[in-house]
């Protein structure tokens, strides 16, 4: 997909983003300077094993453009990671952490950090240089049950990170908002003063947070962990909040115009949502517009090196969103409106099992995640590869068939040539995929240290050594 086509792909969305050529990455960056990026992608419920075996002729059809850069794992069992059995909150909480929840499982805490946080900390212990937002979580979900069903970003102590942002304009603000381009020429004295004040204030504030996490304070370990999370975010946001002369907050990128949320997209206002007939409803085409726009905004953020780590979600654990409209795929049509009129996919096609409907519904879900992949793949970087090639994308879900965590589809996309694409049927658990993917970058996932029972399994043929 060409860069212009990428943005035209927004269809009827009122989008005011400039064309990507104006947003090319910093010209000064040499090929070997391309940063490591890691994004996780998740979707609710799962794809049955026999539908995974259909490869690109089933729910995974939208992966067709990326099949040459994707490793699919069809025999991954999430069961060993589900500390409290396989209810949604438990299987979801272990996604991308690779370890079971602590204390037998609850909806509020994971067993450790998610992999993009692990990578960020390993590579940038003193804060990620230049980025706009240290890590971003975005996508579409409805809250039902415990928070772990939609939380995909877990802090180093396993506490929940950011809730995924559902509103495209807020995703845009998170990446491009509040920017102060580097000063050029002969700036006004007051502007210089203002910037120096910003820096001095930030230094003062960071000193205070640092002092609080030292051993000299009267805080317990749990409180210190919370303060440490705040301090880490300050370090990561340092160059956005108070850029120094040495930092290049935007480089050659121009801040694109503010986009508009898709018409009729009020979904993001529903802070909480029950399941069943009371679950929030949304036209599938409006949901697609939002996911397309979020994917494009994130990709532009990557291309400008304002975003390196994040998570992307299409429907949280349980799939508690009622989609509306007639959806056509795989040579057939499914009337979401009548199917989900008084219940969610969880209720209507999983609990009341309907394999044919699951096949089409998950095609729709997967398609939404591939918008971000497509946007990344539409950006050619200085090494001649696409931004997708130069990123690591981990994909996972909670179940295989129904509520069984066996055969929960996982995939790895991109990876800069470190992995061999294809279809893998070796028996694995999610931790194996995460551990080996990070190891290919020389990063210790930390999973064996956090989970004594874990013995890593080598994935035959996966690493391109």
């Amino acid at each position: 997909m060409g860069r212009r086509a990428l943005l035209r792909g927004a269809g009827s969305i009122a989008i005011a983003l400039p064309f990507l050529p104006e947003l090319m990455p910093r010209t000064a960056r040499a090929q070997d300077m391309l940063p490591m990026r890691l994004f996780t992608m998740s979707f609710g419920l799962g794809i049955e094993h026999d539908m995974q075996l259909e490869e690109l002729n089933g729910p995974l059809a939208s992966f067709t453009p990326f099949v040459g850069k994707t490793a699919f794992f069809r025999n991954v069992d999430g069961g060993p990671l589900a500390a409290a059995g396989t209810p949604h909150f438990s299987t979801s909480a272990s996604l991308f952490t690779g370890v079971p929840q602590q204390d037998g499982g609850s909806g509020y805490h994971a067993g450790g950090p998610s992999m993009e946080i692990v990578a960020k900390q390993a590579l940038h212990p003193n804060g990620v240089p230049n980025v706009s937002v240290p890590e971003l979580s975005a996508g579409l979900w409805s809250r039902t049950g415990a928070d772990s069903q939609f939380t995909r970003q877990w802090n180093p102590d396993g506490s929940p990170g950011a809730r995924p942002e559902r509103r495209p304009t807020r995703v845009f603000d998170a990446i491009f908002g509040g920017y102060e381009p580097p000063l050029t020429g002969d700036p006004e004295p007051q502007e210089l003063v203002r910037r120096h004040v910003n820096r001095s204030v930030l230094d003062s504030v960071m000193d205070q947070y640092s002092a609080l996490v030292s051993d000299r304070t009267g805080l317990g370990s749990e409180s210190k962990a919370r303060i440490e999370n705040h301090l880490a975010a300050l370090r990561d946001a340092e160059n956005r909040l108070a850029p120094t002369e040495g930092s290049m907050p935007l480089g050659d990128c121009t801040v694109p115009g503010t986009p508009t949320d898709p018409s009729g997209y009020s979904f993001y206002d529903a802070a909480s949502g029950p399941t069943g007939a009371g679950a929030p409803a949304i036209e599938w085409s409006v949901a697609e517009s939002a996911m397309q726009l979020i994917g494009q905004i994130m990709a532009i953020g990557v291309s400008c090196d304002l975003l390196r780590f994040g998570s992307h979600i299409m429907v949280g654990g349980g799939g508690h969103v009622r989609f509306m409209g007639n959806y056509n795929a795989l040579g057939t049509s499914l009337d979401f409106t009548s199917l989900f009129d008084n219940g969610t996919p969880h209720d209507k096609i999983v609990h009341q099992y309907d394999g044919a409907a699951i096949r089409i519904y998950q095609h729709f879900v997967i398609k939404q995640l591939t918008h971000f992949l497509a946007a990344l793949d539409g950006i050619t970087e200085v090494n001649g590869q696409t931004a997708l090639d130069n990123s690591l994308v981990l994909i996972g879900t909670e179940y295989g068939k129904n509520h069984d965590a066996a055969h929960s589809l996982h995939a790895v996309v991109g990876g800069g040539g470190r992995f061999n694409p294809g279809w893998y049927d070796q028996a694995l658990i999610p931790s194996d995929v995460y551990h080996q993917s990070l190891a290919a970058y020389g990063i210790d996932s930390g999973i064996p240290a956090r989970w004594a029972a874990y013995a890593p399994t080598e994935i035959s043929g996966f690493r391109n050594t």
Partner: protein
Amino acid sequence: MLVAACVGEIGPSTGDATGIDPEVAASDYAPTPLAIRLNDQQYVHAVEDVLGVTLTADERQKLPRDIPAEAHYATSAEGQFFNPQYVIAYAEIARSVTARLSPAQLRQSFGACEESTPTCRDAFTRGLGRRLYRRPLSDDEVLDYAGLAIGVEDLPEADFDDGVIAITQALLQAPDFLYRLENETHGTPDTIRPVSGYELASRLSFFLWQSCPDDALLDFAATVPEGGAVDKEALTAQVNRMMADPRYDRSRDAFWSDYTLVSTAPFAYAEPDVQEELRHSMLTTMARLSGVDADPGPILDMFTADELWMTPAVAQYAGATSTKDGMASYVSGELEERLGITTHPSFLGAIGTTSFVGRGVFMSQRILCIDIAAPPSDEDAFNRIQETVADTEELTPREASEFRFNLEPQCQGCHQVFEPIAYAFERFDLSGQYTPTDEDGRALYTDGELPEVKYQPAITFDDAQELMTQLRDTERVGRCLVQNMMEYAIGHDVGRAQDAIGKAHTSFDEGTFDDLVRAVALSPQLRAQKVVTP
């Protein structure tokens, strides 16, 4: 900057140590302290109250929203997220707010001086810092802020006022402002200690005002002796003063918003403008029943209230024979089968499900504080659930419920306890409309029997009105309301603190809403803290 400074090192305590607070000493429960971040609403209130500014819509929009964890409150530590966007929002709001402030006015307001001198600057720092930190600043802290200001003033083209603005911005991003910090390790681990006067003031103000203490409350805090008994009369006077303040309305609304779920309910079936009316109608009802613009009765009467408030659109959901202009009260005779808040269309609509399981779990937790364990989740249990779903597919909801009662003990034990309360509401659909038959024209039944649990006898009922009338008089419902308020006040799940709840319940005496708040505010749990290991 040391938290330890909260106790002993800063701000001379003017009171004499008179021995440990006897109520705290006798307490069998105290919350385990945790650095709870001010939630988005508390942050807005605190900035606006202390600085006397109004945050713009753009500034408010920068803050990620704090959503209460399931069945908890937005004031609770349980499930509180940390989003990196907060640090960006705090910085950007501090900058834009201070751009609207006059440094001279700031010095005058918080330092009682106007001159551009180090003495005046330090007085300002102490004054504003005391309000935002909810305690006096130590000399070292004032020195640190002076260093920040001097560094800024030394910049070419900068002046004294720039230093004052820098201090203000830094204070607005400081951990002692953004987090509710207490000295968690002062004492023997696992023992209970009385909190300091300033820690108590902070707890009270975020409970009763959702904001920082004012000067009068901080002055009171300074009189509380370290570790000693608080002057109960003076404390009561402070609580009463705070409850008479308009800021108290925020706390009442925030509590009821989360209690009734309307703070987060999507009301997906209604148009956007009606969704807002549904929230507003519920909160108006709760405010009136709590004594706003009305003579308050016992707050437990909310379960049998004969008068509910709603807008015309909401009244239509309630089957009003005729609607009135704007927000108006409707008595039972004007509505279809309504009595008490649990039959308010907003209450039922906020639950968002008609299933006996969904409604039953929520009502049992919220009204009866029944501790419901997560369903068994091993593979056998899962398969059993699937079988049960298949077995009950053709049954009516009531038949399916009774089928679940006859499952193996590990299932029936819980379902028998939490489902029956929802029977009484079977004739209310998802939007709270009264529908005596289901979509196939089959009659719906509202009778049932609630099993006996502690503090609540078995109850036989024919409909919601009869159920709630009987429940209202049980000790369990009164204790549960106290438990909800205590969690809201303390920020922790207090379900296991039954002795403490019992004492607060006795003090509440099943009086008005204000009596409930006062009982919790004056309970030893507000003054006690469990010491944690460093």
